[in-house]
């Protein structure tokens, strides 16, 4: 309870059907669904994780990959602290799109945004190496040039998913307790909440009837 809480606004970008929503679903509820409907607009989810002594709260905006929702993305990455650019390791086209997203983020998003490049669906490649269409080296090279974190994940098996978010959480400058106190109303922390367990809150003995 006394751990300082940091909120991280995180946005997922990438071509349609690369598995953005599945990554989030795996991270938030450790679940996977085989036939997911395409996302409409942008979905919002939150998840708390403990990193070292801190609690990090991820506010995740999962944007739709379809082209017609392209105009929505800037609204969400503009003041995001972190971005996940996702591509599909079996689809070269999605990697090209990922390059575009990285470029756009560097131009439009805030200067110290932390970007993670994520190659999804490695479970397909693990089964049959011939399915791989985007070389790991190529992606690593891009990550190195642009200063990105790089992961290859599988939302289906859950491989590397938590590592992605942990990696981002570790790179975000965590707030100290003194900064936390003057945080804006937007970052409601657990310190400010009413603790129902503490005896000071209860007016009378618990369970007693007033009559």
């Amino acid at each position, binding site marked *: 309870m006394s751990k300082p809480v940091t909120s991280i606004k995180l946005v997922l970008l990438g071509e349609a059907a690369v598995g953005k929503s599945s990554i989030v679903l795996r991270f938030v509820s450790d679940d996977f669904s085989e036939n997911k409907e395409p996302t409409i*607009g942008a979905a919002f989810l939150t998840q708390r994780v403990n990193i070292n002594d801190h609690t990090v709260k991820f506010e995740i905006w999962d944007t739709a990959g379809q082209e017609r929702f392209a105009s*929505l993305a800037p*609204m969400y990455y503009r003041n995001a602290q972190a971005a996940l650019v996702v591509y599909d390791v079996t689809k070269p086209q999605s990697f090209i799109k990922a390059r575009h997203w990285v470029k756009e983020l560097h131009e439009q998003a805030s200067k110290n945004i932390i970007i993670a490049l994520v190659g999804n669906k490695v479970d397909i490649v693990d089964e049959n190496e011939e399915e791989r269409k985007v070389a790991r080296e190529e992606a690593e090279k891009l990550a190195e040039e642009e200063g990105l974190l790089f992961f290859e994940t599988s939302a289906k098996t859950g491989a590397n998913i938590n590592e992605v978010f942990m990696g981002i959480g570790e790179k975000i400058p965590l707030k100290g307790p003194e900064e936390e106190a003057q945080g804006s109303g937007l970052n409601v922390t657990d310190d400010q909440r009413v603790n129902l367990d503490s005896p000071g809150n209860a007016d009378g003995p618990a369970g007693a009837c007033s009559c």
Partner: protein
Amino acid sequence: MNTSNAYIAGDQVDIPHSENAQLNCPICFKPFTTLAELNEHLDQDHGFQNEIESQNKTTERIETSQRVQPSKRNPRNANNHNSKLESSGKLISNRHWKKFTPGSKCNDCKRQLKKTSEVRNCRKCGNIYCKRHCANVIRLNMKAEYDPKNGTWYSCCHSCYELRPGYNDFGGRVDLTDTFSNTRNKMNVDKELRKLQIENRLVRIIDGIIKLYIAAGDGVMAIMTLDYQISNLEKSITPWKDDTTALNCNICRTNFTILQRRHHCRLCGSVVCDNKNTDCSNEILVRFLRRITADLPYSEKVPTSSEFDKSIRICSSCFDMVYTSRKFIVDVQSEPSALILKYYNLRSLSEVIDSILPRFEELLSNMEIAKELNKPPNATEISEMSKFRERLLRSFTSYNILAKQLLAITPANISEKRIQASIQTVSSNYIAEKILPMKNIPTILGNSTSSNESSTATSLADSEHSKIEVKKLSDLMNNLNVKEIKEYREELMVYKEQSFMLQSMIEKSKRQRNFDEVQILSQNLQDITTRIHDIQGKLGEQGFE
């Protein structure tokens, strides 16, 4: 067998062997078409069957009978009438039947038929069908011709069923227009007569009242007796219905009570209430009635004195009869309202635009073709086009102004308000629809100006001129071209969708008591709403979908 049978039937009758010749029964002279039928007739009706023993019944005969009467097994033909006729020997001709060979196909579904039991011959055309496609019934005579009166029911194929004369997919049709118009005319005549009667009574009552009023003078006693006299006069002209049997109002059917009094209409005599809400009857001033029915042959003049305040009670249906048709005529003859006048102007303006636009569009497409072929545009065409554009532009502007003026008029009544709303929809649609094709002009002309620099000075000047016009046009359209409008509209749609989703997400989070999530989502919703307003502002009038 046939021949032997016939000879036995009687030597005196020479049975003709030709197929077409008429066959008559030698005993009762009944006509038959085929020998087989005649034989059946002789066997069964005249009892020859017992004499000729079954020795003659060859396998061939059994086969024929099986083929002639398969319809007996058909449930649709199994009615008493039919089976009786068939068994009584009246058998339909089967000469025209197509022969069945294994492997023939059903003429309708083209299914291969293997067994004889599957096969049906259409009794009319004789073609081979499967059971399913020979299931219609039709009345045929012995020659297998359609005979709706005396024929017997036989199964037939669908095409014969449909091709028979008088067949109608939609069933029979009866023209009732004359009956309807007769009934209607009769009712109208009745109504006219009724109206005449009512008007007659009205004239007599009003004349009578005025006469009595003038005769009464000013005396106190006279005034007291006047009402009594008028009442008597009214009763003498119109027979009043018995009010003790009338339990409810003749028009609104409200029951009469102590408070809801009975009243008599002075024109039709029926018992009605005077409820102010239903307006079943009203006391109407003689002066007013006299004015609205000035065309009726009154003999007395309305007293000029302002003290003449007599009125008569008239029910709403009589009042309608007397007043409504007259008001309609007056309304039609009177000057149309300002709203309608403006609308006439608007219509004529839109007619002007409609007459110019086709030619203008033609010129535009000509120019597009010229541009694609990299030819310099025709100078005369350009000048003509710029002239047209100028006219169009002026017309559109005045159309717009006129429409706005029209909408600024305060409507006089509900119907005018409705008309106004309709005009608003129509005019805004009209502008949007007609102006959108004109947005192609900037790109075409813009290119033509640049590619045209080497050509003659006149055409250049013309293009310059048109460019200025185009600028004006795009001012009118918020500086957006078709593509931009489309993009903005799509964007607007996405944002609206997202804002809707956010609202539902907020609701969900609220239910789950997840208030920091609600806060983030509301913030986002606010951003989206601002963006929506931005786009709507940019789109302006083009924003509607």
